């Protein structure tokens, strides 16, 4: 039987309805493919750009142990980016093209990475809050309808747990340290709190692709729902650190058991998305620079492989 677009579409819908997985060789609607490439690539770009704020502290971490841990974490970010580029490539978009879209600004990365890390406490706050928010977002993606993405997310989530805990431990040490250290931890929380809760994206009412992505099993929960889960989990942790969340309107609603938060400055969020955050320009410049300065490594690897192949051919002749 020759499959027509209609029967293919019906088969695809059937798989989605059954909460089954779509694999690379399956037929899929163009829009599904495009949406996934966009989302997975943006996710990959975020991991790669995400190495920069923390990379800034690799040489200045306060102990050898902290240096080793931070190095391991930054390596993980690179690895996450690579798992994800690999998953995006199964959809038929070459990696060169994805990198090019990042370098020329045609594809974005998470706006959270456009903020600077001013003190060591920022490294702790990133692990605790930014990676904490990332986990909240990413755990449901382990059940994404696209198989290669879901499997990459399983690996990533396992590693993120280390990231969040090392960050919380940094905050714990600082919060229980000298008054100056406690103050440093508080200042980092003040800087990272609002950007972290913006990581879940705009309110569902304003989210453009939300419904379609939910229907396709790319997305499992709404932005607001995940944001609420994150806030509910994080506020008691801040209490434990004896730190104050910079939201004067934050309060526990006894009737629902959820925390109610004050208004989020979405104008600021969109401004950073548009490229006007504190570090947007330098993040891309650094990335493009690393890619260009790394060209000789790629060339050397290719030259070495060619030489080995020539030697093997010579030996066989």
């Amino acid at each position, binding site marked *: 039987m020759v499959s027509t677009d209609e029967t293919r579409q019906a088969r695809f819908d059937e798989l989605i309805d059954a909460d*089954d*997985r779509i694999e690379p060789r399956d037929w899929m609607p163009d829009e599904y493919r495009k949406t996934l490439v966009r989302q997975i690539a943006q996710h990959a770009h975020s991991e790669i750009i995400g190495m920069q704020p923390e990379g800034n502290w690799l040489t200045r971490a306060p102990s050898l142990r902290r240096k080793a841990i931070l190095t*391991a974490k930054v390596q993980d970010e690179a690895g996450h980016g690579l798992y994800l580029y690999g998953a995006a490539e199964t959809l038929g978009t070459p990696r060169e093209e994805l990198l090019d879209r990042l370098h020329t600004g045609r594809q974005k990365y998470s706006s959270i990475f456009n903020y600077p890390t001013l003190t060591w406490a920022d490294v702790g706050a990133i692990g605790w809050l930014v990676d904490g928010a990332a986990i909240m977002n990413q755990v449901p993606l382990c059940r994404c309808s696209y198989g290669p993405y*879901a499997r990459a997310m399983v690996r990533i989530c396992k590693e993120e747990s*280390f990231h969040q*805990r090392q960050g*919380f*431990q940094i905050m714990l040490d600082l919060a229980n340290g000298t008054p100056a250290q406690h103050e440093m931890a508080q200042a980092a929380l003040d800087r990272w709190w609002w950007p972290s809760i913006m990581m879940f994206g705009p309110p569902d009412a304003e989210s453009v692709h939300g419904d379609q992505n939910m229907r396709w099993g790319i997305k499992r929960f709404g932005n607001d729902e995940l944001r609420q889960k994150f806030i509910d989990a994080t506020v008691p*942790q801040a209490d*434990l650190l004896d730190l104050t969340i910079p939201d004067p309107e934050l309060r526990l609603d006894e009737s629902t058991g959820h925390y109610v938060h004050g208004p989020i400055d979405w104008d600021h969020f969109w401004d950073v998305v548009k490229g006007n955050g504190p570090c947007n320009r330098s993040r891309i410049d650094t990335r493009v620079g690393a890619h260009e300065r790394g060209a000789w490594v790629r060339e050397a690897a290719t030259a070495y492989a060619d030489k080995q192949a020539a030697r093997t051919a010579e030996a066989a002749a």
Partner: protein
Amino acid sequence: MTGSTSDWPLWEVFVRAKRGVSHVHAGTVHAPDAELALQNARDLFTRRSEGVSLWVVKSSEITASDPDDRDAFFDPAADKTFRHPTDFELPDEVANM
């Protein structure tokens, strides 16, 4: 030469048990080309509904690590216990992290 199976290349067979999980190595078959390797692999490894997808890869196309290099290759991971979340002790009050 014709009809001699001894010249047929060896193929590594990978089976995906169900949608959503990875292909896992199942074994090898001999076959003169990829198409027939796929047929042989189906006959040999999926007679009892073991899978929904098959991959065959020429064995000669696989580059494996040398068992003698095992220590140099894999040991450095052993002394980095901090890569595991359990290496970080948190107060009991932090329930899930």
